[in-house]
């Protein structure tokens, strides 16, 4: 008996020491103010990082930051590409985030095709979303010669004119002829253009758009080309007209007029020209002359006009391609295309072997820096859509943690005082057990690298509330046995023995719930499940083993304060 007791007290002492060691970084961090933290970081960054890593981590809801769930759009990929697209996207996003310089980011795959990114402490949300969500497919393309473009525009105008006359025809009462046309269409695809356009305009997806804006659609003579104003090798469109151009460019009849080897692309930015917001439209040769995969490095910089640019270096193979391309096209513009949008189209001045620069129009330096990061990290294998985003400001996090701590302390104190008043000296023993329960729980969280969230704090408080259950069961049983006239020693032994079953029962049910919550939970709820589960496991030791060890310190009891 006595040897067993020594063994238990030794174990308690060791656990306390280990907990102190595990919690030391957390305590140090919590007691430092902002200035002291900065000083510590300056003094020894490596040591500072170690300290932070060993401290209990705060969830996004407590420290502020951003959480984004993205879905990888695999619809354009073939089966082989789709297989590892999500994992590849994850690695590339991790690369970008690392280069962006976020401390303790979390990037993981969720389910089939989702990627969760958590960036603690981020405040510039739009920038971060751009950075992780952009496909960043960089391509260099030549422009279609002006005379070819003029011909294409003419053909589009004609096609729209045909559409115009049909639209007017459509306003007249339905003619039986139309019905035949529909049948004709299904059997003879390439019939006269008039027949086709009738059925196309009735069936194509633009019917809704037509119904919406029918009265204002600016069809008429040379409808398309009048909205385009030639500027150098490309075209300027006012923002309002751009809506129409966009709509028409989805019209199958219009698309048919654009040859396969020509790509119509918009500029990446709108600009102000003559007091109007304008966009730029480019007619590119569809062939990709050179792509971002040949880049070995990319750095943001400024050109001689103090405009932000990205300097890039090419691989040897890339250098050969680029030298041939630029050498053969001196004096012509070369479009720099990012995700199907033209960043800029500078004129090739000379043959460029392996180093070049990306001019970015009126972009700011930050955009150049982010583009450089994306080019270094590589492009995503497929576009991603943001399906959930959660941004928590630092002040909100600080507010939450203050409230969490206040509530915890109040809850803990109320429970401790209640137990102390109700069970007196025995209550004091139970109180020590409750406090040890909390200390051990925090220590386990620190060791396991668990993240403390707001619901996690609730889990700790709930643990405190339930932690005394075991002791209440035991003490009530002891009281009962005493009332039955048992000796104090016997009452204690019976109380502990009989209550054990009920205590284990209650722990098992709580563990089942915690497990289900853990499987179900997103970040914060997982935090709750983790603290609850560990709380009850530790409780078995603190509430049963430790309090019993205290009672066993004395063999013969003459009186018992319970």
């Amino acid at each position, binding site marked *: 008996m006595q040897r067993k007791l020594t063994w238990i007290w030794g174990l308690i002492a060791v656990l306390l020491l280990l907990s102190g060691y595990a919690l030391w970084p957390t305590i140090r961090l919590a007691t430092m103010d902002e200035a002291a933290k900065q000083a510590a970081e300056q003094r020894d960054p490596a040591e500072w990082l170690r300290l932070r890593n060993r401290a209990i981590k705060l969830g996004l809801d407590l420290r502020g930051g951003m959480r984004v769930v993205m879905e990888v759009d695999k619809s354009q990929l073939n089966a082989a590409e789709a297989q590892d697209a999500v994992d590849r996207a994850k690695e590339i996003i991790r690369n970008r985030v690392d280069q962006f310089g976020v401390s303790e980011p979390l990037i993981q795959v969720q389910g089939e095709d989702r990627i969760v990114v958590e960036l603690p402490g981020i405040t510039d949300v739009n920038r971060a979303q751009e950075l992780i969500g952009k496909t960043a497919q960089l391509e260099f393309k030549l422009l279609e010669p002006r005379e070819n473009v003029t011909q294409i525009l003419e053909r589009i105008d004609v096609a729209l004119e045909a559409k115009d006359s049909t639209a007017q025809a459509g306003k007249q009462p339905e003619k039986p002829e139309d019905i035949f046309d529909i049948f004709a269409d299904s059997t003879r695809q390439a019939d006269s253009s008039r027949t086709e356009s009738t059925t196309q305009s009735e069936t194509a997806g633009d019917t809704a758009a037509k119904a919406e804006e029918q009265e204002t659609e600016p069809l008429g003579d040379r409808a398309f080309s009048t909205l385009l104003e030639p500027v150098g090798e490309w075209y300027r469109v006012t923002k309002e007209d751009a809506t129409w151009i966009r709509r028409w460019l989805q019209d199958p009849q219009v698309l048919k007029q654009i040859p396969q080897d020509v790509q119509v692309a918009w500029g990446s930015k709108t600009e102000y020209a003559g007091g109007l917001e304008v966009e730029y439209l480019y007619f590119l040769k569809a062939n990709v002359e050179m792509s971002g995969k040949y880049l070995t490095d990319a750095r943001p910089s400024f050109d001689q006009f103090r405009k932000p640019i990205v300097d890039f270096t090419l691989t040897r193979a890339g250098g050969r391609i680029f030298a041939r391309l630029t050498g053969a096209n001196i004096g012509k513009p070369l479009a720099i295309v990012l995700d199907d949008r033209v960043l800029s189209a500078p004129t090739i001045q000379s043959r460029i072997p392996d180093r070049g620069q990306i001019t970015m129009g009126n972009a700011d330096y930050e955009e150049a820096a982010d583009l450089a990061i994306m080019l270094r990290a590589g492009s995503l294998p497929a576009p991603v859509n943001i*399906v959930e985003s959660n941004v928590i400001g630092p002040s909100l996090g600080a507010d939450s943690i*203050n409230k969490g701590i206040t*509530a915890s302390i109040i809850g803990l104190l109320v429970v401790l005082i209640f137990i102390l008043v109700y069970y007196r000296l025995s209550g004091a023993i139970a109180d020590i057990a409750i406090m040890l329960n909390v200390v051990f729980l925090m220590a386990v969280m620190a060791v396991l690298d668990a993240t403390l969230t707001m619901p996690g704090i609730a889990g700790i408080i709930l643990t405190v*509330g339930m932690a005394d259950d075991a002791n209440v069961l035991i003490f009530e049983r002891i009281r009962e046995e005493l*009332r039955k006239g048992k000796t104090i020693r016997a009452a204690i032994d019976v109380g502990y023995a009989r209550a054990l079953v009920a205590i284990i029962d209650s722990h098992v049910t709580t563990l089942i*719930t915690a497990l289900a919550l853990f499987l179900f939970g997103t970040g914060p709820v997982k935090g709750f499940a983790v603290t609850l589960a560990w709380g009850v496991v530790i409780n078995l030791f603190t509430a049963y083993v430790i309090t019993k060890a205290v009672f066993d310190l004395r063999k013969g009891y003459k009186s018992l304060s319970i």
Partner: protein
Amino acid sequence: MSISIIGKTNIDFIGMRKTTFIISAIVAIAGIYSLVLMFTGKANLGIEFGGGTMIQGNFDRPMEIGALRDAITDAGFTDATIQELTRAIPNSFVIRTKLISETTAGKGADIEAVLRAAFPDNPFHLDSIHEVGPAVGQTLQKQARLAALISLIGILIYVAVRFDFRFGVAATIAMLHDVFAALAIVYFFNWEVSVLVISAVLTLAGYSLTDKVVVFDRIRENLKMMRRKVDFVPGVNLSINEVLSRTIITSLTTFLATLAIVIAGGEVLREFAALLTIGIAIGTYSSVFVASPIYVEWENRKPKRFK
């Protein structure tokens, strides 16, 4: 002598079963009704489950909630709900809208822009934005159903292993009663069905069962020991009375702890903690007034064991 909230009691709990069955049945029906509404999407589903946007922020100076509502409604967010928060930072509001688009992007920023434009001399500062697309909500609904199923199956297996059939059925019915009661509270207070609220309901299911286990343990123990001396119903009554002080004290301390969160824990946890607080009381009630009487009724009609 020691302090006791309740000393040795001798209340005829089982004798009250006719009244309490009716109360419990009403509560359970209300809960099932609420559950059906939640499943069919008619309840106040949180944006995590239903999709939508929630933004939280504060104004420099006090702001009329009516003026705020008008500005947001005028901008087309006709379903927006606005709530003022009590935080360390004054004039804080949370605005929720369930208008959603496939990719979610931008609704939060739109609302922020609206507020900045509507109140140029009382600037709005954003504290948080949460945007959820419908696909995510559906995934989460699936996960919630799965979690409920897992915990239910887990608890049933446990009960089956731990008790004989009748105790198990009685405990499970009482636990379901508590879950339904919790759901009814969520629905009738029009609380948002959030991930946290669902977590609270599942936690309560576990807590409720614990309570039943303790009571049944004592019933079993007493009936075995006093088989010859005590009749069945008085034996059950005695057991409940004996564990009553434990039940009340444990519930009370847990209750005090969760009450501390309700009062001092802030908005994030308020409904979660309130539900736990009320749920603990319900769990205590159902151990005494639902689980035990069901067992008694069963035993009365088809005597099996301790007779």
